[in-house]
């Protein structure tokens, strides 16, 4: 099972990113867990300063912008 983490302290952009990640998972019809990470200590442990960021299976894929559903799908393939 894939693990998608949305890193961010709970802003409008983080919610949008989470929604897009769920949509990507749904469209690909794969098993994946979408989890929100709001603890800043954990977030900076990933080396991320600029939220929202997305990590797939523990690897940061993008930070500081809301990526598109297509981009997330590409990373999940």
């Amino acid at each position, binding site marked *: 099972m894939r693990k998608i983490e949305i890193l961010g302290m709970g802003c409008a952009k983080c919610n949008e990113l989470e929604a897009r990640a769920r949509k990507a998972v749904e469209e690909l019809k794969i098993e994946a867990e979408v989890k929100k990470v709001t603890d800043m200590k954990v977030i900076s442990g990933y080396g991320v*300063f*600029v939220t929202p960021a997305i990590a797939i299976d523990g690897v940061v894929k993008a930070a500081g*912008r*809301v990526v598109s559903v297509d981009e997330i799908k590409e990373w999940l393939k």
Partner: protein
Amino acid sequence: MDFLYELTIAGLLSLKEYVALHVITCLIPAFLLAGAMVTFISRETIIYYLGATANKVRSFALASGGSFFVAACSCTVIPVSSGLYYAGAGVGAAFIILWVAPASNILAIVYTGALLGSKMVIVRIVSALSMAFVVGFVMSYFFHKEELGRTFSGFVPKGERVIGKKEAVLLILIVATLLAPNYLVQKGPYLHKVYVWAIGMLITFLYAKKAIQKEMIKRWLEETWWFVKIILPLLLIGVFIVGVIGKILPQKWVETYLGGTSVFSSWFATVIGQIMYFATMTEAPFVHKMLSLGMGKGPALALLLTGPGMSLPNILAIIKVFGLKKGIVYTLLIMVLGTFVGWFTGNYVF
């Protein structure tokens, strides 16, 4: 019933005066600029340099200058500054960002200029930067014990450049579009300003189309739309409330408590700014209205600085992230500095 009607009219007039008249030549380019900054400037690179700089004066200067580009509104500043702090950067630099980014962010600066004139903007920027250095030194002095043994562990960003050349030109073009209507058309009908604005916009977009990748232009417009979506509703509500407050607040009251150049007026303005929540940009019309009711210019500046930078919820969030002690020292420090800056500029600058 008549009273309610009058209040509604006051709110609507305020919307016309502060928002409708500024949409084309101020708000549209300002939002486009904020969007472009978020898209084209590598905030990771700025923060990396900031965290890795051991020299205090240098890192404070970088933090103050970089803050203009790191957070375009107060909404994103706590995650950025706390991220920097937890990654091991100095506590001084982290709190400088926390202070400068909202106190003189690009959207607020542009809007303050449109409503209150260029002198107020210049004093606002200079005050925010001077206060930043004091904040940096005081915070590092109070918490120097825990500074020892901290090392910066941020990752090295992929592209080392802060911004590409073509993107920098685009940013300059947007700034020019923003400034030109007001500086080229000092007198004459508003329509002339719109002409200048339209020419600026046309050049900006033609350049963007030619020089910037399509994907990045799309991202830029998306980011711009985000700012509009998040900030505009708050601005509309805020400006309406400003109109209503202006109607019900007795002039006498404003003159007594916020007028003149006394220490008390500046202190009171600072405390209002620290406790009340002002969405980014709403502080400018609020201060403009208060000035027309007899507020002193010094206290006005104090409110402009502390209004968007601090609020009760914001203080609580800072305490949660940085700890009670740092939160309290920072809050008291801003109170002292805000009062001083208001008093000083009121007596010697304005």
